[in-house]
């Protein structure tokens, strides 16, 4: 087609588009190479603050990264999610594609795999994300995504425990009419 090759990406992050386009047209890379090159450029430059290290800190002040790479003939579908302590997330996803038959690698497993594959283990925290986290703590951990726990998540930080009512509710449900004779 006269319109190929092509690179398209969300937002106005044209440096990432350029990096992918060069991979395709100058370095003779594949489509997968191009997407990894483009997204890696975005991670390194922390595009718009929403890509790469230093994003929103979680309740422990850590930042996690999600990434995926997919090829159009499905021979490998290796996303990584909630990756901690390793910055080049899409390159880790590419390593999952190249060196495993895994699909989704999440959390510590993803970080351990990345470390095995020789990726640098380093904090993803920046001054900004640390200050954001400190401010969040000073603001009684507001906002957060907790519900039905004690202490009251709308006024206090954790650690949290489930509210008794939920346990009671579960117990009630457990006893209602279910017996070894009518439930496999």
């Amino acid at each position, binding site marked *: 087609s006269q319109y190929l090759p092509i690179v398209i990406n969300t937002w106005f992050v044209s440096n990432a*588009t350029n990096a992918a386009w060069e991979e395709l047209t100058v370095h003779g890379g594949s489509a997968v190479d191009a997407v990894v090159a483009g997204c890696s450029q975005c991670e390194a430059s922390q595009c718009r603050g929403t890509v790469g290290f230093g994003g929103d800190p979680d309740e422990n002040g850590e930042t996690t990264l999600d990434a995926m790479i997919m090829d159009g003939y499905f021979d490998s579908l290796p996303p990584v999610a909630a990756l901690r302590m390793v910055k080049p997330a899409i390159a880790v996803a590419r390593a999952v594609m190249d060196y495993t038959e895994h699909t989704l690698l999440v959390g510590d497993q993803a970080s351990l795999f990345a470390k095995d594959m020789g990726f640098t283990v380093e904090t993803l925290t920046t001054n900004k994300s640390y200050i954001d986290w400190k401010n969040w703590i000073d603001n009684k951990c507001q906002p957060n995504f907790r519900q039905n726990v004690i202490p009251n998540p709308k006024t206090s930080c954790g650690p949290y425990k489930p509210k008794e009512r939920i346990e009671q509710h579960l117990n009630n449900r457990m006893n209602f009419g279910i017996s070894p004779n009518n439930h496999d």
Partner: protein
Amino acid sequence: TIGMIAIDKNGNISAGTSTNGLSHKVPGRVGDSPLMGAGSYAMNGAGGAACTGDGDIMMRFLPSFQAVMMMKSGMEPSLALKAAMAPIIQYYPSFFGAMIAVSSNGTFAAVCHGYKTFPFCVASPSFHEVKVLKVQC
């Protein structure tokens, strides 16, 4: 989040995303970006699509997968995106989100909801340099 799709001159398609989830992902949790069919999707001979925005809502509809399946059935990227976006808008009219799609022959489109306009970038033989384009939401 960045969602990206590339098609090489032989027609092989790849899609990918990367995010730290700054604005929509629950910090420390998994968002929609790494989930196939939600964050992005690619199928040789059909096309590729990618999403950005409120992932916790968008992921429930696997919009990237939907858009690629529509293109596989011959729909133009812009119509495919509108069709993939429609159920999300129906059930969550106040959500924020955007999608891009490119069909296997290189025609592309973008769609958005909740923003005024949505910017995206394209590089192809049709343009001498990387183009930043905008779509009205």
